[in-house]
């Protein structure tokens, strides 16, 4: 086992050293994919969730700005998830709500509700790399994770904050992504993502995301209570803290349509 892993690492290392940009899907690629598939499989069957989130934005001088958001999510078999996001703070956007049907292939369907006008607008989901509510999180950082969104390569195993981690490179398949690659640290025991490092379109180090305080729900599903994103270029940061995770709320597709979007609050 160890020998096999070592071999894989060596192969991965030499592939890196040669900086082979061929389409050749070697052992490192297969292993990277397998790790992410396993993580995805372990999280299957969550059904539906509701949660609350507080976002604290900090500029390089440490000035803070707060957003409060609630969301509902529904797992859809053989396709991307459905989600409804409700904005509570800042107060000028209170009542604004966002409905998203993500898809494993093709563009996601997204609608925005503007409460002052009582207007539902279908919006383009093309905007992957833009900041979410002025934060250091891009839309693509917060959208539902689908295997098809990346190509993978296993790099190595190394010690991390909770045991040993797989280190996997992920290359976005969507040309509209703001990244050339992400490097993720996934813990070997429970397949939780602990750290993600983002490289911008020029392949320069852009951001580091630390995902902490995991709690297990329904004896199976791990969810973080804290995510910290630091932008190394702008020196700005955004902290996300999650609370009130609830599974098994009995949500169905009928909770995710334009009528529920209009009365979300």
């Amino acid at each position, binding site marked *: 086992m160890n020998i096999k892993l070592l071999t894989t690492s060596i192969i991965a290392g030499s592939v890196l050293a040669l900086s082979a940009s061929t389409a050749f899907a070697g052992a490192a690629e297969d292993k990277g994919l397998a790790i992410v598939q396993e993580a995805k499989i372990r999280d299957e069957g969550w059904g539906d969730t509701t949660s609350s989130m507080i976002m604290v934005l900090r*500029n390089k001088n440490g000035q803070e700005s707060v957003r409060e958001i609630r969301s509902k999510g529904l797992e859809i078999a053989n396709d991307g998830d459905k989600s409804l996001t409700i904005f509570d703070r*800042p*107060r000028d956007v209170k009542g604004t709500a966002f409905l998203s049907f993500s898809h494993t292939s093709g563009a996601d369907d997204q609608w925005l509700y503007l409460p002052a006008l*009582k207007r539902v607008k279908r919006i*383009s989901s093309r905007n992957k790399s833009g900041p979410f509510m002025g934060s250091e999180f891009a839309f693509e950082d917060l959208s539902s994770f689908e295997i098809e969104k990346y190509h993978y390569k296993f790099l190595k195993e190394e010690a991390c904050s909770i045991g040993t981690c797989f280190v996997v490179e992920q290359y976005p398949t969507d040309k509209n992504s703001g990244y050339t690659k992400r490097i993720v640290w996934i813990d070997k025991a429970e397949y939780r993502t602990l750290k993600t490092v983002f490289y911008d379109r020029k392949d320069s180090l852009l951001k580091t995301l630390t995902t902490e305080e995991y709690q297990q729900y329904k004896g199976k599903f791990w969810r973080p209570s804290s995510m910290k994103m630091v932008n190394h270029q702008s020196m700005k940061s955004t902290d996300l803290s999650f609370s009130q995770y609830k599974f098994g709320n009995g949500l169905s597709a009928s909770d995710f349509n334009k009528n529920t979007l209009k009365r979300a609050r």
Partner: protein
Amino acid sequence: MKNIAWIAIGSGLLMQPALADELFFEATGKLSTEVTLYADDGQFANQDYRTNLSFSAEPEFYWAWNDQQDNLTFTPFFRKDQRDSERTHADIRELSWSHLNDNWELRTGFRKVFWGVTEFQNIVDVINQKDTVEGLDKEHKLGQPMVNLSLVKDWGIVDFYVLPGFREQTSAGLDGRLRAGLVVDDDTTTYEASNNDRHIDLAARWGHSFDVYDIGAHWYKGTDRTPQYNANSHNGENVLSAHYQQIEQVGLDVQATIDSWLWKGELIYQDNPIEGFWASQLGVEYTFYGIQDLATDLGVLIEYGKDQRGTNANSVMQNDIGIGARFDLNDTQSTALLAGVIYDLDYDTTSFSVGGDRRIGADWKASIEARAFSTGNSNDPAAIFVKDDYVKLTLDRYF
């Protein structure tokens, strides 16, 4: 007039047991201060001023009970205007009870409804009367009494509306700007319907989303929200009188959302006592995301409005091209900048607008809006605004 809506709200409340386990209550709101600076004195009598100050308040009270299956929303609106006594007004934007079920909702009371997809005007948006003294953008509406049943089906969402009671369009008074030479006199309003503003209007709409398309189709029969204005004499004064006719209308709104492109169209056919006519508003919007490696998005759009009645139409864009641009900085303060121009092909005239807004701290927002009217053609209805170029500064405080 409004009795039906009141009774419906009342009976709805009574039907709900007072012992519903948990009553959720929330109060929010907005206070606004607005300063308008005009480039010139107005062209009509009583318009010899260049500044105006105005305040408004719009609280919102919300109750939910019965495990969130029932809710009541109350949103009154108040404005105090320094100059214009007609702009000083109050309205019930919303006083409505909603009962929710898995696949249907019943909404009863004063409400606002939006239909449409385009940006410069929404010819399919017929349910509410416009509160035109609030601004030229027609985004402000008076609450409409209604009973609205909404059904969610696999093949779309269907809404049925019974609309008892009619609200007259608001209009600037003698001391107001952005009005015609004659002032609208509410006492001289006439209706085609024999029961005047008590006519019960009916409407239905089907809306559906599939693939990249969002489609809506509607039918409306009742009092036209847009009045016909006639010069009249009342108590020895020359005034404008509004006449509200009965119309029947069908319409369609479609949006195709393809990558960064939004293709939009609204189409209506209206039958009224004078004539039957078609009107359309067609346009396309494209967004450049993250321009020049910044977080800023730039959206550009072009729309064309056509009304078969030509210059007899009482719509703003009877044969007009509108071009707009919007910058969203996507910063912490949600700064946005807007610019638009409408060119009238019949009258060869142009109106410009620029604006922007930005959040300040957590609970404040500042906005600026400027409009200029360039019309060398006195036949253009917009010629009444030719001395009304303005800059409006608004400061909102949210609670």
